[in-house]
């Protein structure tokens, strides 16, 4: 569904991605994880065509991403970033309907879609008339999710979507996301720095370090058979609340 082949990217002569290849099968969720600066966000934005790779190819749904099909292809993908990336001058509803209005959907169709998604992401319809700055972080992410799902894309790309959300709300949102991904059979690429979240949401985990994929597999494989000492350290760096009492 998403296929990245041999992607190279450098900024000002400094390599960020070194020939990375990654395939995400249909209706599966892949969690991309790694320390800051490992290139995971860059890889995700290359998949969306937001950054152009120096070499390598991106295929979405079987066809190569080019400048000619860029706009169309992006509309097949929903995009959610940390803190929502909502436009502060537009109400939540206007944020969500920007693209459907551009595509000339009639207003009943837009409204029906909004109603449907609002109940899916569990947000009061009244909240949609507020400006993003008047919504909580969790609500902003739910609105961002509606915006990403408006055109019912098969692919969803999320860049640390819950990065700045407090733990209780995050816990709830993680469950809601998982329900949405599975029930709607979406193909999902999720970037996170939280191994627990990666494991909970992802069918597979891809661990990156300094522009390379270090290991790919289920959470069991990564925990039980770490590919090298870096993976082992990364796994052990996750603190469990009970650990302190062992």
């Amino acid at each position: 569904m998403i296929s990245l082949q041999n992607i190279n990217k450098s900024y000002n002569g400094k390599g960020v991605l070194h020939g990375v290849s990654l395939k995400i099968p249909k209706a599966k969720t892949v969690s991309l994880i790694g320390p800051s600066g490992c290139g995971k966000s860059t890889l995700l934005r290359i998949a969306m065509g937001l950054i152009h790779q120096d070499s390598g190819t991106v295929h979405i749904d079987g066809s190569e991403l080019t400048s000619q099909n860029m706009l169309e292809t992006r509309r097949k993908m929903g995009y959610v970033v940390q803190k929502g990336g909502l436009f502060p001058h537009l109400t939540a509803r206007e944020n969500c309907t920007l693209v459907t209005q551009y595509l000339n959907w009639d207003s009943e169709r837009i409204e029906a879609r909004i109603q449907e998604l609002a109940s899916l992401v569990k947000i009061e319809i009244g909240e949609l008339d507020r400006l993003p700055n008047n919504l909580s972080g969790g609500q902003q992410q739910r609105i961002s999710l509606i915006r990403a799902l408006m055109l019912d894309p098969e692919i969803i790309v999320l860049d640390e979507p819950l990065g700045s959300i407090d733990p209780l709300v995050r816990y709830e949102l993680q469950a809601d996301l998982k329900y949405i991904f599975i029930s709607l059979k979406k193909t999902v690429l999720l970037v996170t720095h939280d191994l627990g979240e990666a494991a909970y949401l992802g069918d597979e985990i891809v661990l990156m370090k300094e522009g390379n994929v270090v290991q790919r597999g289920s959470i069991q494989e990564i925990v039980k058979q770490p590919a090298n000492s870096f993976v082992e350290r990364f796994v052990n760096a996750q603190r469990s609340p009970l650990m302190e009492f062992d």
Partner: protein
Amino acid sequence: MISQRRSVIFIVAFWVILLTAKNVLAQAPVKVGTKLFTESVIIGDITQQLLIEDGVEVEFYKQLGGTRILWNALLSGDIDIYPDYTGTIIEEMLGGGEFKTITELNQKLEEFGLQATQSLGFNNTYALGMVKTKANKLGLESISDLRAHPQLNYGFSNEFINRADGWAGIQQNYRLATTSVTGLDHDLAYRGLQGGSIDVIDLYSTDAEIDYYKLKVLKDDLQFFPDYQAVILYRKELETTHPNAVKILKRLEGKISEEEMVAMNAAVKIDGRADVEVASAFIQEAFGVQTEFTTSTLWSRFITNTLGHLYLVGISLGLAILFAIPLGIIAAKIPAIEKSVLSFVGVLQTIPSLALLVFMIPLLGIGAVPAMAALFLYSLLPIVRNTHSGIKNISTPLIESAQALGLPNSVILKKIELPLALPTILAGIKTSAVINVGTATLGALIGAGGYGQPILTGIRLDSMSLILEGAIPAAVLALLVQGLFDLVEKRFVVRG
């Protein structure tokens, strides 16, 4: 997209109309200009009233500028007539030379397509003057006597300092030590003299103030200053296009004596009578003709000046907005030309506003059009810079979120970038508008009207109330403009 293209067409069309209108209208009437000082204005008034009396249509550019501006305006045909002095023409404009008579001078002037009348009847020569008591105390009688007193402070009109027949020549001929010399407006020099901050000033021998301030005119013992016979300069082509106008100019030859000129200057500058009225009284006496003139009231001047000022500011600012916002967008979007656009408008802003105005004269002549062009250029920077930075400062995640939606760039610009940059753009327009309102007062220097007009006249007549008549409304207008934009900002930028 369509509306952008339409606005470009509109601007171009507007310029073309403005420029052709200027040229077409320029054909019919006779255009009379005067210099900034009262005597020139009075002679201009007399000329204008006599021409109108004879049925000639006149366009009158009162207090248009200094010698250089008027000479150039005459050469280019922006004006047809203005009063000047033989010494000034010979020394300053022709770069010296021996001319025994005005008829000889006219042979030279013909090369420029110009002619001068014979002397109007008086010689208004340059002179140096001091307060009588001080001169007597130091025993000063002539310019040569100044050599013994290098401690004196000199305050000269800027034109006099730079002229070959002015300070530079005096200093050389009289071998005066280089002392403290301040450049200042001639009408303000009398105040400095009275206040004691300067000791010696340049005078015109017909100045009304010589008597009034009890000044001593230092004798030009080396006969340095040439003759400054008052004449009226005109374009030679008037002899064929407006022969009756030339006839009227010639009627003034020999008609104004030195005493009469001093008296008229005093009537306006000391007694505060309107220059048009003094001119009319002279015509009545000299020619027995009753001319019509209108003296303006405070209210009518206020209306005229306000309309003139709003015209200058409105059009120049409007065009600047239409040009600068697209220019700012282009600078933000095309890295290849970003730097050149920003430095270009930056350099425009560094040109002193007065200089920019004068640069416009050879390109666009005199009046409102060159003033608006200068104000337009001057208003670009704040708007271009703020549009550019307003767009550039939108955070990358926001722009990427917009791109990820699959919206084309034009829609992103219209729906996301411009609305988010709006507060910054409005702030830029506000800055431009306030600068524009202030700078537009300088437009009066090239005959553009506006609040600068009473300020100029006020400086000429040493009248604080006239200066305030321009300065106060200009300041109030600047505050109003600022308040207006604050309101607009509140209304449109309240969200987010």
